């Protein structure tokens, strides 16, 4: 029996080290300057300084790796930590920039990000160990995120630079949110339909596989910027011919088309792989018992191919959430717009305002499809 959980111990130590060794917050006279770091002790957290004893609990509980009580306590402390840290940062920011109109900014420092992110890792590790079903883990994460959003809604985080940026760009943020979702949904959805059909065709006709995957692989290797460039001319030409269609060389049309083309390979491959792993004996038996080709497809092949197919769709959707960022370069909008704006203005918090929702969306999409897969998984 293991006497000590090394991963948990290392994580707890790293959290403590980043908390004390790195600046917890940064104070800058305006948003463009990097500013000076404020360590945990310099930040006027008040009694909040005592929160640093919480990671000691993780160090301690690492002594009993298999203990259910220790695991539960660790999870509770981790959730608490994930909520407490932003709260403390928010109240400190309020004390440093009490005037909402002030140009001065307090942003989250490396110490905050590391000790918060590592705690999230520790929580996910503990949840994984518990061997709970996916929905239960999702529930705990969902509750944590909701409480975090609640902190934001009651105004506890308003004076942090990130939220200041949000306040200043709220309209752009909401617009980007809608655009980003539209980019993902309307590129992945047609790709799922087309990819499934291509995969089914490839499964039926082996000779099709070579040329089909040669083309799809080629598309996948093209950098997204190059693909946008390639689509520019033909779509601009099409837009001129059909002005009513709203198609143009830049904007939504080429972005959707490019994202759809990228999504095609993993979905087609997933469909084909799913159909290929259907036991040949099951198909032979189905035929021998008098199922029609259509019945074999719908009752035997597709249900048995579904798990692999869904895994393909999941990877594709997560990939599309990330790729859609680049679509901002050709004016299709999305969170990329905010991110690139921040990059060009060297405003780190604006970049984060674009990146954080993309990461959150990717995780949410991943979780959603994992839940769907678990729902259709073979009964054990």
């Amino acid at each position, binding site marked *: 029996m293991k006497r000590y959980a090394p991963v948990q111990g290392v994580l707890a130590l790293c959290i403590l080290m980043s908390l004390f060794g790195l600046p917890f917050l940064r104070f800058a006279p305006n948003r463009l300057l990097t500013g000076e770091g404020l360590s945990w002790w310099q930040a006027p957290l008040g009694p909040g300084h005592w929160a640093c004893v919480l990671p000691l609990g993780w160090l301690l509980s690492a002594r009993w790796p298999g203990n259910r009580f220790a695991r539960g306590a660790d999870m509770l402390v981790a959730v608490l930590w994930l909520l407490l840290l932003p709260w403390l940062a928010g109240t400190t920011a309020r004390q440093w920039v009490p005037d909402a109109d002030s140009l001065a900014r307090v942003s989250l420092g490396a110490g905050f990000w590391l000790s918060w992110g590592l705690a999230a890792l520790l929580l996910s590790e503990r949840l994984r160990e518990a061997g709970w079903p996916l929905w239960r883990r999702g529930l705990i994460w969902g509750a944590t995120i909701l409480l975090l959003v609640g902190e934001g809604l009651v105004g506890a985080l308003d004076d942090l630079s990130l939220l200041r940026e949000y306040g200043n760009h709220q309209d752009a943020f909401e617009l980007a949110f809608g655009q980003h979702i539209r980019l993902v949904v309307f590129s992945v959805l047609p790709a799922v339909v087309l990819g499934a059909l291509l995969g089914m065709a490839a499964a039926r006709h082996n000779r099709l596989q070579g040329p089909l995957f040669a083309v799809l692989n080629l598309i996948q290797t093209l950098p997204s910027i190059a693909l946008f460039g390639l689509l520019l001319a033909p779509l601009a030409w099409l837009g001129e011919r059909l002005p009513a269609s709203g198609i143009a060389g830049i904007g939504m049309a080429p972005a959707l088309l490019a994202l759809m083309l990228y999504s095609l390979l993993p979905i087609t491959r997933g469909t084909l792989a799913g159909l290929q792993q259907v036991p040949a004996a099951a198909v032979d*038996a189905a035929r021998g018992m008098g199922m029609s080709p259509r019945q074999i497809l719908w009752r035997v092949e597709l249900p048995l191919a579904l798990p692999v197919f869904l895994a393909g769709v999941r990877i594709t959707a997560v990939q599309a959430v990330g790729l859609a960022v680049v679509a901002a370069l050709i004016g299709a909008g999305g969170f990329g717009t905010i991110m690139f704006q921040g990059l060009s203005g060297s405003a780190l918090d604006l970049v984060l305002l674009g990146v954080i929702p993309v990461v959150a969306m990717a995780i949410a999409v991943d979780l959603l499809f994992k839940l769907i897969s678990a729902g259709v998984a073979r009964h054990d």
Partner: protein
Amino acid sequence: MIDISQVSKTFGSAGPAVDDLSLHIATGEFVVLIGASGSGKSTTLRMINRLVEPDRGSIRFAGVDIRQIKPEALRRRMGYAIQSTGLFPHWTVAQNIATVPQLLKWSKARVADRIDELLTLLHLDPDAFRGRYPHQLSGGQQQRVGVARALAADPDVLLMDEPFGALDPVTRATLQAELLRIHALSGKTVVLVTHDIDEALQLGSRIVLMNHGRIVQQGRPIDLLRHPANTFVHDFVGRTEIGIRLLALDRVASRLRPGERAAGEPISAELSLREALSAFVARRVDRLPVVDEQGRPAGALCFDDLLER
């Protein structure tokens, strides 16, 4: 029941898989097609339910040319069981057995009754097995379900392609006995493909030995053992083992000396002579007491009696 006349089939550029083959299978017969791999036995079987279409020749089923019957309709009238069972992994045992009845649009109640009836017939407790998935069953249980599924819609003919090939010897022997019992009970026509000569000798009322797509010899098991047509048949049925296999065809009851007595542990009259030979050698005796099915003394068997008089 099934009339195969002058049928040929060639795949690709290799020689013919089945070459001008004619075979008549009567109602209620248990025909075993046997041969080495590539002898055309499986192709012959698969032509009967149109999984393979012959290049030349015709096959009649119950007097009708099978080309006149829609393949799906034809197949639903013939049970089909294969070596790797081909059970649908995403369906329960009950759903698997219900496959053909559902295709034939039987009522729910009738299907449910049939499932329980078949599970009982194959010695699987309906309440315990109905809701299980194939991966929760042992190999032998899976094949029982496979046979039950083939029997589900009460087909006129049962086509079986090496159904017991992947099972261990003990399970295989049990299922072979089950199949014989079901055949005797239902009087169904069975066409079974195997490459195992012992299985063929035990099961078949007629054995059709094939090589290179042609029939080399056909007849009752005893005909093949006693009068092999050529050295190929002689080799195939086992050369040095022929005597042993002949003994396997007969029961102790047939050579019994009624009323006589012998000392020692009695053997059952239902055993094969092959098993009796084993008992003689193992116990180093030349006389064995025999009891009938109810365990009553029936007589004695002498070592000399193993030879046909």
